[in-house]
């Protein structure tokens, strides 16, 4: 199993390494960010093109509709633009983006709770199905896979496994420690194992009946 030096749990064999196919040339992003801070519109556009699909997917994995994700993406970029001076060259850029995206998401979540569904409790919301069929009537595979997880577990798995961030970067983005991230990921994997085992069992039973 490939490791990134942060693997510490002996009890399981979760791979905390970045998925190779999604590994970002982070230095390139940092360079674009530095140019964006200097007022280079081309660099800003390049960043929007590069980062937006990741952030959009991050929102889709948390929310029920792509329309919400579209709104959140726009709101996130406006916020990023407003506070772009808070990024400091040399620091990892993805945690900075994701920290702001999380803030926008949580803010949006609180506002929607306050305005639209006062009577609905937060716990009930987290139990709602997080995936909806897309235009073709087929739910996104990743969202369906992450659906049984809690909101915080989904965002961690999304950052770690889909966006290809390291444990350290995820910890920075979520304002927590590496140990806490590891613990949450282990719990998420436990839940995924259970869910996938049940799914596998059902498939087997269905196959047997046919």
């Amino acid at each position, binding site marked *: 199993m490939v490791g990134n030096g942060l693997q510490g749990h002996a009890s*399981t*064999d*979760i*791979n905390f390494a970045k*998925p190779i*196919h*999604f590994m970002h040339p982070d230095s390139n992003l940092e360079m674009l960010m530095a140019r964006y*801070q*200097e*007022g280079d*519109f081309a660099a*800003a*556009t390049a960043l*929007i*093109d590069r980062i*937006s*699909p*990741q952030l959009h*997917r991050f929102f*889709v994995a948390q929310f029920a509709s792509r329309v919400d994700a*579209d709104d959140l*993406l*726009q709101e996130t*970029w*406006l916020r990023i*633009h407003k*506070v772009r*001076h*808070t*990024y*400091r060259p040399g*620091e*990892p*850029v*993805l*945690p*900075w983006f*994701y*920290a*702001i995206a999380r*803030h926008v998401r949580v*803010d949006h979540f*609180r506002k929607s709770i306050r305005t639209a569904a006062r009577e609905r409790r937060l716990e009930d919301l987290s139990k709602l199905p997080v995936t909806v069929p897309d235009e073709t009537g087929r739910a*996104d*595979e*990743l969202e369906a*896979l992450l659906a049984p997880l809690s909101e915080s577990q989904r965002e961690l*798995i999304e950052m770690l*496994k*889909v966006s290809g961030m390291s444990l*350290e970067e995820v*910890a*920075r*983005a979520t*304002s*927590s*420690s590496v140990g806490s991230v590891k613990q949450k990921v282990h719990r998420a*994997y436990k839940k995924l*194992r259970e869910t*996938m085992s049940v799914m596998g069992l059902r498939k087997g039973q269905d196959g047997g009946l046919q």
Partner: protein
Amino acid sequence: MKDGKIDEVLDKAAWTPHHVEPGLLKRVAASIGSSMQPVRPLPPTWVLACGLVLICATVALAGAARAGFYGFEKMGLLERALIFSTVGILTWVAATEFVHEMIPGSRRWMSAGTLLGMVSALLVCVFALMFHDYHTDHFVSVGLVCLVTGVLHAVPAALLSWFLLRRGFAVNSVSAGLMAGTLAGLAGVGLLELHCPNFQATHILVWHTMVVPVSGALGGLVGLAQRFRGRV
């Protein structure tokens, strides 16, 4: 089901490209393009932390200069060294964490609650080690004066700290408020140690230390209010 199998499934799912409507990306680019201008990044953490420590020291010294350095004059050399070095180190730690809280994606060593607990606990330990007069004369009346004085001096320290970090961005306003309050509370404690000549152990352990949690709680409440007003 093995974890490796889950990784495989996640990797496979992650391979699926996620498309964003090109029109949306154009709208985003257009919306930020109209206000595109160079910005100056924030200074390094240590510079901002030095500024915060300076603010706390200034507030404590200015307050003591106005009220008198009676506590400092009454202390022995060991008490002075241990108490002020502890307050100084804790102020530095709180300042660094507060700066990190105001910069998205920064490395965090501890949460705001942990910081508040750690600062309070360490102050209690140092005070318990240094003061052994267990009389309790006018415990509440004198104690309340110290608590109010400490908290009142924490207010300008907190306001100046917010001013110094006004270009920062708190992703969690409650946590940021709690940290600002803790830091400002240390300025209040610093002032009390310089000024208060009452060396009764219970007085210092309870009322002087209490400045930090009270100030931290007030900061947290301000952060909560900011969250509800949607300004942070």
